[in-house]
């Protein structure tokens, strides 16, 4: 983190924040992948 005065202070990034951020981008990505694989499968079945 950085203080208002601009000095860098030691900080750690909460694991929960990292997990939340990856989940937030991961869930839509998995949804998109699933839907696309479903569509792509018609190439082999349709």
């Amino acid at each position, binding site marked *: *983190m*950085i203080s208002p005065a*601009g000095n*860098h*202070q*030691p*900080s*750690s*990034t909460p694991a929960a*924040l*990292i997990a939340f*951020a*990856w989940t*937030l*981008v991961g869930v*839509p*990505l998995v*949804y*998109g*992948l699933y*839907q*696309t*694989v479903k*569509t*792509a*499968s*018609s*190439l*082999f079945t*349709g």
Partner: protein
Amino acid sequence: MAVPGFLTRERIVAGPGFNRWLIPPAALAVHLCIGQVYATSVYKAALVKHFDTSLTAIGIIFSIAIVMLGLSAATFGTWVDRNGPRAAMFTAACFWSTGFLVGSLGIATGQLWLLYLGYGVIGGIGLGIGYISPVSTLIKWFPDRPGLATGMAIMGFGGGALIASPLSRQLMDLYDPAYDGTAGTVPSGSAVALLFLTLGLVYLVFMLFGAFIVRVPADDWRPVGFDPSKAKQKALVTTENVSAGNAIKTRQFWLLWIVLFCNVTAGIGILEQAAPMIQDFFRNGTTSAVAATAAAGFVGLLSLFNMGGRFVWSTTSDYIGRKPIYMVYLGVGLVLYVLLATIGSSATWIFVILAAVIISFYGGGFATIPAYLRDLFGTYQVGAIHGRLLTAWSAAGVAGPLIVNTVLDTRGTPGELVAGDYRPALFIMVGLLAVGFVANLLVKPVAEKWHEPKAAPSAPTQEASTVR
């Protein structure tokens, strides 16, 4: 142009202990949103009907957005590097979201020009700023694995279309009960207007989240165990820096411009025509052995390879080097294009495999170029240099479809074309890839005269606990 205090670079310098794995999701939050631009085909037919106009008049919206992407990335690149990723992501979010909202208004009021202005011009500016905004930050956080880092972000751009296509269909189904997404049904204009409104608001929140969590490393920070002198031992990798203004005066910049232009033009040649192309390759008289649903599946498969190639090939470039990986994209790509033109119509599986690998090289080319720029020009203004290079994308976005469509127009009518009709266009692409291959061969380290003067050395801060 000054930015409000909370957006400035100085406010987001990470302190010791910061975990750099928070940066890729910040970048993905932006790229997953702006990648929607490749999902415009979902509502194209609805807009043609709503505005009672031609497919070309609607297709122009996409072209304007891509041209604005290149222009804004080139114009605002230096501003992005100067003000940092939070200011850039915030600005991109505002433009991209406003583009949708103005576009929604245009659809709701039946004013096509508002759609051009909104989604095309305003949204296109958001696209350009958003595309380059996290790239230089990721390169700075991952100096040991720049290909992996940029691959992750730019993979998100490919992933954005995978999300937006089915999501848009489901939302339009919700807003227009008469539309069920099956072939032949078209959603109403008001459903598309509501879709634009929804996407505009959702993308705003998502992108602002990315802007909120992004951080830049301190100037003297470097990951534990990373020794720039070892990286320097690799050919073409510099520890010097070149400004964006000087970079465009170097031969290397223009060689990479040619490389990107050729690689993208060749890929677009297939992507633009994917569905009709596979049907035409296996046409017997007026009917094709490949059904329309299977052709749609082929488009989906290409999207997966486009996205996967961005991550896989860009990451591979960290191990084998940037110049060799472009030898693969352009050299192997050239061979695959020849095979596609000659034996592509012999079996569907051969056609599908060849096209899929070619498209993975297309995606890989996009994702690896920022790391290539960083190798040659350093990290100082790599975002601005990347922005200027993206004009090659804009040019390819015009040239690729133009080459394919012009050739096909001279060969016959859509619905009656066969594999042989594609051959001239495919061999033009082979020629382009050969030009790109030679351009890549000619890339040499940047001359010392372009390097920035060295600043006073400072002791690096090694992090032990969090950087993996």
